[in-house]
């Protein structure tokens, strides 16, 4: 068995790969021994007026582009254009994604700022510039791949890949004439002059079998068919929709029972005695008014605080106490009307007492500690003081 395979492999390996050549001449090549000779030859070929010729050397020979009168390469400009595209694309991408579409505060930084965008912008510039340079250099500028160029598989190309320097004049040149070209090549010192014919299968029809349009189209069709089939089977036959990482995450949704914790709750109750942020315990909670003697209003009196107090008072207090604290409820008797806030008793109370009533409640009035924040309660106290003073204004208040 193994022997059979081995024999088969050997047979494949030894199969003659040489393609048959036609009678049509493609080019005439000549070999030279040293870089100086080839430079000289290239210069003379240009001078003789040949345009369709090439020099093949095992490595780039310096100064050859001048000798061959080649135009300056455009590779650099390509890189610049694509690199610039990369820069723009990266900035637009980051700017839109993190600055507009999905704004998140991270470390107190702006949604979009230049410094942290630089690294990715740089990388994409280099990525696009580099890929375009290499890719376009090969395909656009050098017209590769071209694996069945008639020059291949000739003595000429094999020698120039190793240690000889070759010059080839193509038959398509307008001054081409077999005898003159051969004579010319000899005159400039060329050795082993070789006539190179086209392959039987012309290279202009199939430049590169694997990059042939049909082959690539076939690949594309196979890819699409496989992908669509696989997707269809997964999705509609096996009911395993692919690409659902984002939909199906391992987390507990609202109203769902946790299978992880024995009590079925997914969130853990806080440890006993846990205090939430900003919470300050109220030490007079549930105690009578008389004990509240040491509380003073921490807020300054200014327009801002009073405006705040007014807003809160009108929202929470005025339904029963009336907009001016006169006890004129808007509730049409659904609750007993509270006493006026302008009585002597309330006016002589310390700020702390009023605060205590709001916080703790009194008689029918319940505690407002949950609805109104601590600072807002103190603002309300200021506002009540302002109302009281307004109703009992003295002459000097008018100044």
């Amino acid at each position: 068995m193994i022997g059979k395979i081995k024999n088969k492999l050997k047979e494949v390996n030894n199969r003659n790969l040489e393609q048959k050549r036609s009678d049509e001449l493609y080019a005439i090549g000549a070999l030279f021994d040293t870089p100086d000779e080839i430079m000289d030859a290239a210069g003379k070929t240009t001078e003789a007026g040949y345009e369709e010729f090439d020099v093949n050397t095992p490595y780039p020979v310096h100064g050859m582009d001048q000798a061959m009168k080649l135009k300056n390469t455009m590779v650099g400009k390509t890189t610049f254009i694509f690199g610039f595209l990369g820069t723009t694309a990266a900035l637009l991408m980051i700017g839109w994604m993190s600055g507009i579409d999905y704004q998140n505060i991270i470390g107190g930084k702006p949604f979009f700022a230049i410094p942290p965008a630089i690294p990715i912008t740089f990388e994409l510039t280099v990525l696009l510039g580099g890929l375009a340079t290499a890719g376009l250099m090969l395909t656009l500028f050098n017209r590769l791949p071209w694996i069945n160029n008639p020059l291949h598989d000739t003595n000429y190309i094999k020698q120039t890949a190793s240690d000889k320097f070759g010059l080839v004049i193509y038959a398509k040149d307008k001054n081409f004439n077999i005898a003159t070209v051969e004579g010319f090549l000899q005159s400039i010192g060329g050795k082993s002059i070789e006539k190179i014919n086209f392959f039987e299968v012309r290279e202009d029809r199939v430049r590169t079998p694997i990059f042939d349009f049909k082959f690539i189209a076939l690949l594309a069709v196979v890819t699409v068919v496989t992908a669509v089939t696989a997707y269809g089977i997964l999705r509609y036959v096996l009911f395993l929709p692919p690409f659902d990482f984002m939909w199906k995450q391992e987390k507990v949704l609202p109203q769902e029972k946790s299978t992880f914790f024995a009590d079925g709750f997914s969130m853990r109750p806080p440890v006993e005695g846990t205090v939430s942020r900003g919470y300050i315990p109220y030490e007079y909670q549930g105690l009578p008014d008389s004990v509240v003697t040491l509380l003073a209003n921490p807020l300054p009196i200014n327009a801002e605080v009073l405006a705040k107090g007014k807003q809160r008072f009108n929202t929470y207090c005025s339904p029963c106490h009336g907009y001016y604290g006169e006890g004129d409820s808007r509730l049409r008797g659904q609750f007993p009307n509270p006493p006026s806030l302008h009585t002597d008793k309330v006016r002589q109370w310390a700020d702390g007492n009023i605060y205590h009533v709001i916080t703790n409640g009194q008689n029918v009035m319940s505690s407002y500690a949950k609805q109104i924040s601590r600072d807002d309660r103190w603002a309300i106290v200021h506002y009540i003081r302002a109302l009281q003073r307004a109703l009992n204004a003295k002459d000097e208040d008018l100044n």
Partner: protein
Amino acid sequence: MSFDSTYTRELPLVPERSSFKEIDDVIFRPVEEAPTRKWFIAITISSLALMIGAVALANTFYFGIGTWGNNSTVGWGFGIVNFVFWIGIGHAGTLISAILYLFRQRWRTGIARFAEAMTIFAVITAGIFPVIHTGRPWLAAYLIPYPNQNSIWVNFNSPLLWDVFAVSTYFTISFVFWSVGLIPDIAAMRDRASGIKKRIYTVLSLGWRNSNRHWQHYERAYLILAGLSTPLVLSVHTIVSFDFAVAILPGWHTTIFPPYFVAGAIFSGFGMVATVLIILRKVYDMEHIITLDHLEKMCKILLATGSMVGYAYCMEFFMAWYSGYIFEQFVFINRAFGPYAWAYWTMFSCNVIFPQLFWFKKIRRNIPIMMLLVILVNVGMWFERFVIVVTSLHRDFLPSSWAMFYPTWTDLALLLGSFGFFFTCVLLFVKVLPSISLAELKAVTENAQPTHKHHH
């Protein structure tokens, strides 16, 4: 002038002007001949290490990241240390192939291809660690900004995301650079081969035919790729350093990190390239292509970069004191004299003190001592990352959360496995592709270029 050649001659790459044909033979020999026994022994050892790593990896995936030594204080352990270490190893390749190319250091030619290949393998090795460290490698796709059902985007302010872009760009561009360099060599191999090999090489060489019309574009593109790779290689380790330095953690947040990491990366990369080359030139009898002169040059670069790293160590220490910032001061005292002092001093001596021996020419030209020193460099640079990661974390602002980090067998086996993976790749590469750039080597041998008298 009689003394002209003493100080001006570039390193003779091929002594006594071997013919181009002989160069072909030497370079293609490892590829064309059947593997030797030495090669089989080497690959057995490296794949054994790789297998141990694979077992550890399976263990990690089966049981989870709990099998690693990380704890809640030292949340970043071997995973990131190995990642940074291998990324660093990768930097020498691009340095040799791109930066030295731009500086027209012709001696680089003999080692460039090989170093580039090492870059590619090192970056792959490095890439393994961020992917596995989550314990769920299939979720790595989240790192790419792609339109998704929840319409959320990745965090572009995170240096870890910059890493994703940097490392993948680095890999891609290095790979392109390396492949572009390979095309003419594969073409040369195609013209020597027959049978199936020839077919494969024909396709891989894209039909390259050494045309000077092509060389013109090719050379410019190669120069531009070198020009792009140079800032790229700086950016990669810079961004890796940002992973640490943008934090406010004392010991990580220091502005010298970017150039310091780059210098360290080049240092460790050269250490690794030297280690492998010393072995390789022996195994494949390439002593006359990778000469002692090459190794001496590499020693000089090791000395230079090692000293740069030393400068950064001292600068960090001085600034910690100078800053007047007590947390910063504590971290550095803890590094040098705390429970991980042994790691710190291993790092310091291997990276800064021992390489100073390269000041002496005798040591630069003594293979066994050089071998010892470059291995110490590898050790030292691994410990550098260990010191940065672990000692900065293990005693943070809150003494109640102080802890020690102890690696588990899984950690150690994964580290071993990463070496196994890397060396297996290197050994396979040497067997399959020409490990020295033929076209470039020929171009810089003596008398390879025309004398400029005719055309200037």
